[in-house]
């Protein structure tokens, strides 16, 4: 179990006063276009300066809108960690569960009310260390869930420990001599376990991320989106990558679009420190979901 630390900003909220830019037209005093999708009274959020989670959440909210998911059908289930705090800011039905257990909780929600569009939003440690077993089995069942993993290569909430996605050789507070372990290759793991939709982008690919969420929210079955996000106070700092903006540029510079890779070349999706990172959509299949198959079980039982 990791601890929830009390973030410095959790004590109170500052109302979102709207300040037009120096050239701003006072008549255009409106709120941010995402404000009606957010619990804006809770802003500013707890994430650190230069963190990418807010960007990824914005892209998901964009996806909800553009996939025309009705407001009352939007459900976000999260676990524990920085990314899992999205439930306090997104104006959806929101469940902040235990560390690693968002996927089985979301499974119960979805099966009870299949009309809901259920998203699991959590971090790499939550989904792939403590919750790895649940990820694998939900993918195997082709459970109707969109799972979003904010991969920042370390445990941010507890102060930057190494985890299941920390690249080999990378530094963290628990790998001070360089990580001796190899990280999970998340797209391949998801695909091998049976996911129907798999994509990976960095937070600087925000437009592609928006399009991916829009597409994935309209699909069925188990969908997985990995978002490579900066964590400048821990991973970025420890590994001397720099500020949040610099870390975003760094990942972006290492990107190779999957669509631009020759099918004969041997560029894999594993992440190796300072080596190119393949991004794009890796799997997009329309397959029978658990609910489709279970409907047949019910029909047979009622015969």
């Amino acid at each position, binding site marked *: 179990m990791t601890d929830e630390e009390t973030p410095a*900003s959790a004590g109170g909220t*500052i*109302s*979102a*006063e*709207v*300040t*037009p*830019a*120096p*050239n*701003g*037209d006072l008549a*255009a005093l*409106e*709120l*941010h*276009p*995402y*404000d*009606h999708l*957010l619990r*804006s009274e809770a*802003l*500013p*959020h707890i*994430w*650190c*300066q*230069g*963190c*990418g*989670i*807010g*960007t990824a959440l*914005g*892209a998901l909210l*964009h996806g909800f*809108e*553009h996939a*025309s*998911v*009705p*407001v*009352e059908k939007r459900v976000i289930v999260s676990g524990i960690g920085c990314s899992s705090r999205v439930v306090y800011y997104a104006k959806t039905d929101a469940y902040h569960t235990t560390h690693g257990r968002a996927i089985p909780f979301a499974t119960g929600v979805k099966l009870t009310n299949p009309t809901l569009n259920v998203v699991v939003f959590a971090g790499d440690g939550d989904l792939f260390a403590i919750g790895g077993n649940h990820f694998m089995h939900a993918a195997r069942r082709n459970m109707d869930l969109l799972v979003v993993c904010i991969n920042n290569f370390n445990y941010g909430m507890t102060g930057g420990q190494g985890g299941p996605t920390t690249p080999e050789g990378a530094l963290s507070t628990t790998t001070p001599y360089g990580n001796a372990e190899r990280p999970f290759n998340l797209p391949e793991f998801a695909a091998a376990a049976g996911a129907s939709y798999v994509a990976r982008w960095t*937070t*600087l690919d*925000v*437009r592609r991320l*928006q399009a991916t969420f829009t597409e994935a929210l309209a699909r069925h079955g188990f969908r997985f989106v990995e978002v490579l996000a900066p964590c400048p106070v821990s991973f970025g700092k420890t590994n001397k990558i720099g*500020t*949040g*903006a610099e870390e*975003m*540029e760094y990942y972006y510079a290492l990107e190779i679009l999957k669509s631009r890779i020759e099918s004969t070349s041997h560029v894999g999706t594993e992440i190796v420190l300072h080596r190119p990172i393949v991004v794009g959509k890796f799997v997009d299949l329309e397959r029978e979901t658990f609910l489709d198959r279970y409907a047949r079980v019910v029909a047979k039982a009622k015969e």
Partner: protein
Amino acid sequence: MGSVALPRSTSASGIARSPARVPIDKPVRHHGTVHIIESRCKECEFCVVFCPEKMLEISDRYTSRGYRPARVKAGKEGDCIACRFCEDVCPEYAIYVVEDQP
């Protein structure tokens, strides 16, 4: 129901919104006004670094949380091309663009 479309252009080229007689070889330039919700800004500089027009900068004033919010550079007020990248990349929902009517 419940889906309120975000005000944004769907096509960078502007084709979707153009009237029928705009020549295709004449670029349509959009203009916008940047709005910054200073109390939300955490000075991450995403908008400053990633603005294609380089029209933003960090101000020299501090918010009550101790951050210096982004601002539009003096003299650059008319440079916004309403691409909205700052709005999309801002992790704080602290900056947005209102597109000027042509």
